[in-house]
Each structure stands twice: as C-alpha cells, then as structure tokens.
C-alpha cells in the first residue's frame, strides 16, 4: 500500500499497530526487521531512501553500522564515508529532526548535496542511550510530515528495543562466535603448537634414538675394545711362555702365568723390574738391570740371549729372552714386552748330549786304542806266523830234502815218494802262509795312490810271471792302457795275480793267448785280462773271489784260493769293482774298474 501517511488518522494508528506487531514478530532477527521496516517506511512515506543504522561504541569510539537500506541498490552508497559522516552528525542530535530547504546546517547541506531536499531522521533511543538511527531521505512533501514523524517516533522506541535486543543477542552470538573463534584459533594455535611440539618431540625422539644407537654403538665399541683388551690380556696371561710387559720407570704391568709358575714369583711379588732382578739375579742384578734399561730404546725386536735366573725355590733355570718395543702409554712411558723361553731342559739335554758325545768320543778313542792294540796283536801274530810257522815248515822241507839226498841209497821207492810228499806239502803250506799274510797285509796297509802307467806295468808283470812258468808259450796282446790312479805295489800285486792266473789256466793250451785292454767309461776305467784257457762254469762265479774258494782241484791247478780274494780286496780298496765272465773251455775274462776321479795325489 503506497501512499502518504495521514496525520492522526485512525488508519495510521491501525497501521502503526500492525507495523509494531510485525516488528515484534521479527524481533529476533534485526536484519530481517531492518529490511521490513525500511521497505514499509519507504512505502508509507514515499521517501526515496530509508536507512536503518545501529550505533556501536567500542573503546570510546562511536561508529555506525548500516543494518538495512531501501532500496537495496543504495547499500554501497549508504556505506560510503560521506554518508557515515552524515550518520555521525545526526547521531549528535537527541531528537528527531526534519531537514528542509534552504539548508542552513552542515548536515542539511550534506543532504542537499546528496539530492535530498526534505528528510526526516529519528534517533532510536533507549532511555538516554542512542542505539541507532532511522533515516527517511527525500520525502515527497511536507504535508503529512507530522504524521510521519509520529509514526517513526512511535516505531523508534520499539525498534530501538528490538534492535538493541536483537543486536545484543547478535552481539552475544558475535561474542560467543568471536570467543569461539578465538578459542578455535587458540585451539588451533594450541593444536599447531601441539603439532610443533609433537614434531619437536618426534625430532627429539629421533635424536634420542640416534643418541641411543650411538650409545649402543659406543657400548659395542667399548665392549669390543674390552674384549680385545681381554683377549690381549689373556694372550699374555695364558701365554705358554714367560712374558712380562714393563715400562721404562720399572713398573711391571703384567706377567704371564707361565712366568709365575716357572719362577715362583707372583705379580704382587715383583711389581717392578728392580724387584725381579733383585730376586732372580741376586748379585748380578745391576748388570741385568742395565740390560733391561737398554731395552726401552729398542726400535725392533731383539734377542737378548740366555740368562740364568733363580726361582723362588732357589733352582737355577735358563731363560732365553727376546724383547720388543710396545710403544708408549698415554702418560708417555715407553713400554716393552719381554718373552722368555725356558731352555733349562734343552740346555741340560744339550749338555747331556755333549757329555754323551764326549763319552762316545772317549769310547771311540778307547775302542780305537783297543783296535790299535788288537791290530798290533794281529801284526805280532802275522809276524809270528811268518817267523814261527814258516821256520818249522822250512825245517821240515829242508830236512826232508836232505834226507832224500843224503839217504837215497837206503830208502826204497815208497820211502822216496813219502819224502817227496813231505817236501811238496810243506812247500804248499809255506805258500798258503805267505798268501794269507799278503792278504792280511792288504787290509792293514794304507793306500798311497799315484798316477801309474799301466801299460808298462802290465808288460813288466807279464814278463815276471812268464819267468816263473818255464817252457810255456804265452802270447800277450797288450792294448794301450790309460794311466790309473792307484797304489803301485797293490795294483802290481793285483796284476800279478790276474796274469799268473791267466798263464796258469791256459796251461793245457799249446799256444796260450792273453789279452789285456781297457775302455774308458764316464767316471771309471774298465780294465780286462782275457785268456783262452780252461775257463770256469759261470754258476760258480760268486765263489771266484772268496778266500780259500777254488774251482779246480789241486791236481789240475795248484793254488791256495787266496789270489783272487786278494785282487778283489785291492780293487775294492781303490773304490773299483771286479767281476769275471767265462764258460768252461772258452777262456775267462776278468774285469776290474778304477775310478777316474783324482782324489789323491
């Protein structure tokens, strides 16, 4: 219902009542109330713009809030600084005011400037307090101005109350909201703080973990160190040798159990090297201490040698010491490890060996003396044989000869034959004795070797042997022989025996042939004496060189069975070998070797 509000019109009163009822029904929402009122008032009054503001006072400063504007397009304008200035000026006025032209006041000029020639402003009062303003700007005419003023005044009291309550409630809400938001902020802050603290805590936890693991590591390291130290300690303590670790100021840091066990002194008894030298070396302690002091200057391990120590029980033991520098302690004291080997038993065994050796040597000397004595006896025996045995033989042989010669007339043929047997057998025995003596001499006499021309020697021996075989036809084929390093009388004897054998055993041959030759081997010369005689059965070869071994009867070939044994002995003494090859009636070849290494001169 658009139109002008009539003054004192019952309709107006009814309208006012209707408005009041509607205002009250909107008391809980000031904005909706504001929108309704401004719209209703604008329609009732025909004002171009109706504004409804609330006055606020915070910390003593007054300000104005636009609660509602109609038409709504004027909201921005209503919030402008110039209009806010207008609110502040109108707020000063204690009563409702009609603004009309011509403008005389600042406020009227401001309103005029904004295009409003007739306006009505009403303060919203509760007692003496102005809680807000009601502005009806640009009224159409002044005809119903009083009625409008009354209407607005009537409305203003109720509206002020509603506004205050509504804004109070709104404020309360606002306050609660603010508090809540403050609380929320605080809460958020707290929460953020909490997160921060949590982060910090986490960090601190991690740090703690790291610290703990570091501690664990440290602990492990300490344990490892302790274990390693323990191992070292045990290595020293349980060492099978006496071991001492000592410092240059004489402190004994550690000794092995072996040290204590052998010496009898515990670590407590020898806390310093001086205590040790005093106990173990007695009067020689200064000499030994000087030796120990010298050790601290060592740069590498050194063998000190053997020391005789006195054990606690007073027994002398021999310790063979070695020492090595161990570097410095944290207090800069130089440290040395000394290790000993107890060589007492070894030395005892050695001296026992020396003693036994000496005893053995003495025994050898004694035995040699005995052997020499028995050799002397043997020589005396041989001498005795050569004299005492041969003398009677010579007498037997001699007197048998004399008997045969002087008494031949009174002896019959049988007697003559018996004498013949006596003569030949005594002669043979003489030969046997001679050969045995020669053989025994060959074993006893020392070897004197020189370089010998064997070709010339062989020829000479052959001539001599042939002279003892009268009537024999023997041809010697003597091939050039190398020289030999040999004992001249001995090698001559060997050749004599071999060649005389060859002559003897070729006796059945009309023309005996003997060949002597040689061939050079790597380290020896092989000589041979070959004949075309009766030879021998090869199955008896091993008997050839035995003493008194014979392969022929005395009737076939005379001999004592010593000759070849003697040759073998001579060759063996020269370091050579001897062997023979033969078959019955196919001649025999005797080989012997002489080493070519010149070991004598």
């Amino acid at each position, binding site marked *: 219902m658009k139109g002008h509000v009539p003054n004192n019109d019952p309709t107006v009163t009814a309208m006012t009542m209707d408005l009041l009822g509607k205002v009250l029904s909107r008391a809980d929402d000031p904005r909706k109330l504001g929108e309704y009122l401004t719209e209703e008032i604008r329609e009732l009054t025909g004002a171009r713009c109706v504004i409804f503001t609330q006055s606020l006072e915070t910390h003593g400063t007054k300000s104005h809030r636009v609660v509602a504007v109609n038409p709504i397009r004027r909201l921005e304008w209503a919030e402008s600084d110039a209009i806010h200035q207008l609110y502040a000026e109108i707020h000063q006025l204690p009563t409702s005011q009609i603004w009309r032209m011509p403008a005389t006041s600042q406020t009227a000029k401001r309103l005029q400037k904004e295009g409003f020639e007739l306006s009505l402003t009403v303060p919203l009062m509760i007692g003496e307090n102005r809680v807000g303003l009601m502005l009806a700007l640009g009224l159409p005419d002044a005809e119903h101005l009083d009625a409008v003023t009354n209407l607005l005044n009537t409305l203003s009291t109720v509206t002020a109350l509603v506004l205050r309550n509504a804004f109070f409630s709104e404020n309360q809400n606002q306050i609660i909201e603010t508090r809540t938001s403050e609380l929320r902020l605080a809460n958020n802050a707290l929460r953020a703080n909490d997160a921060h603290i949590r982060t910090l805590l986490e960090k601190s936890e991690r740090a703690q973990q790291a610290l703990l693991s570091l501690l664990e590591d440290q602990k492990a390291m300490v344990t490892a160190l302790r274990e390693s130290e323990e191992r070292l300690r045990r290595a020293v303590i349980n060492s099978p040798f006496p071991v001492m670790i000592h410092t240059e100021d004489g402190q004994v840091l550690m000794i092995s159990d072996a040290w204590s066990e052998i010496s009898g002194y515990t670590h407590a008894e020898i806390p310093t090297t001086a205590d040790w030298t005093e106990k173990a070396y007695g009067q020689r302690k200064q000499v030994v201490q000087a030796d120990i002091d010298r050790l601290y200057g060592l740069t590498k391990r050194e063998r000190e040698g053997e020391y005789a120590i006195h054990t606690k029980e007073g027994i002398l033991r021999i310790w063979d010491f070695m020492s090595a520098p161990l570097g410095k302690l944290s207090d800069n004291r130089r440290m040395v490890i000394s290790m000993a080997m107890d060589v007492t038993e070894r030395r005892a065994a050695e001296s026992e060996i020396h003693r036994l050796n000496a005893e053995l040597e003495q025994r050898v000397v004694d035995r040699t003396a005995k052997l020499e004595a028995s050799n002397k006896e043997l*020589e005396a025996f*041989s*001498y005795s044989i*050569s*004299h005492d045995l*041969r*003398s*009677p*033989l*010579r*007498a037997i*042989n*001699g*007197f*048998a*000869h*004399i008997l045969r010669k002087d008494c031949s007339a009174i002896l019959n043929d049988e007697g003559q034959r018996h004498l013949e047997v006596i*003569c030949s057998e*005594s*002669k043979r*025995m*003489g*030969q046997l*004795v*001679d050969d045995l*003596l*020669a053989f025994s*001499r060959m074993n006893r*006499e020392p070897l004197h070797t020189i370089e010998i021309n064997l070709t010339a020697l062989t020829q000479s021996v052959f001539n001599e042997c042939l002279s003892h075989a009268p009537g024999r036809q023997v041809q010697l084929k003597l091939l050039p022989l190398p020289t030999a390093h040999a004992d001249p009388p001995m090698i001559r004897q060997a050749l004599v025996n071999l060649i005389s054998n060859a002559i003897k055993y070729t006796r059945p041959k009309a023309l005996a042939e003997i060949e002597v030759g040689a061939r050079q081997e790597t380290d020896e010369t092989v000589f041979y004496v070959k004949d075309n005689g009766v030879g021998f059965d090869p199955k008896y070869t091993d008997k050839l060189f035995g003493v008194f071994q014979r392969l022929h009867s005395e009737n076939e070939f005379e001999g004592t069975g010593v000759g070849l044994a003697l040759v073998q002995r001579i060759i063996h003494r020269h370091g050579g070998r001897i062997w023979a090859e033969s078959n019955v009636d196919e001649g025999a070849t005797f080989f012997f070797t002489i080493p070519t290494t010149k070991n004598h001169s």
Partner: protein
Amino acid sequence: MNTSTEVEILLIEDNPRDAELTQRALKAGNPAHSLIWVKDGAEALDFLFGPGHPANAKLHQRPKVILMDLKLPKIGGIELLRRIKSDPAAKLIPVVVLTSSREKSDIATCYELGVNSYIVKPVDFDHFSHAIGQLGLYWLSVNQPPEPKRISAA
C-alpha cells in the same frame, strides 16, 4: 890278505834248524869258508866288540859278511843292526838280513839302518839252498869290500 883263521861269515840265528840248513847251503855253494854261528844279538856283540861289548868298545872282529835273523832273543835283530851300523868301523861290514818276515816295516827299517841286503828265506829248500848258495858266493867272492880304516891288533 885274508888268512884262513879269519872269520869270513858271522851267522846270527837262534833257530838251530835254520842255522844248520843255512850252513849246509853255504857249504854247498862255497865249500871252504870260515863261519861263526852265534844264537842271539848279545853273543854277536860280544864277538864283534869283545865280551860285555861296552859302549865305547873297539871293533874286535871284522867278518866279510854278517848274516842275521831279525827275530833274535836278548838283543833283537833291529837293535843289533842299529848298533853295528852306528859304529864307524863296524858299519863298513856288509850285513845281510835273512828272515822269514815280509813285513814292509821290517824291510824299511832295515834299509834305513843301512842293511846291505834283505832276504826272505823261502820255505822250499831248493829255493833256499839256491838263494843262500848265491849269497855266500856273492858276498865272499864277487863283492869288493872297502879297505878297513884301521887294522885291528892281532
């Protein structure tokens, strides 16, 4: 210049059988010779240097040859030889060792002491007779002895 009373051969031999065989062999080779046979070294020295044969005794007898065994009682052959060959006068007398020993040491020692001959007596009597016969002939007839330095008082 030798007279028949002069002793030509001094035989020193302890074994009577050997002595007999030796004398027989000498006779066979040299029928006319004068021979003295003594049985040990002491007797031999008594004969040569007089009874007791003191150390500074002069040579009493000067046989043409001395035949001696080595193995002799009392004073042995080697010692006897040394004594003879160390005397300025006696050492001029030829000494022949007649022995059974073929020991090298014996042979060497005898020659070192100045023996004039060393003969190993053969067991076989034929060889023995031959050797001794030759020996007598050689030393009594073939060999030329030196002039004695001084004539002993008759």
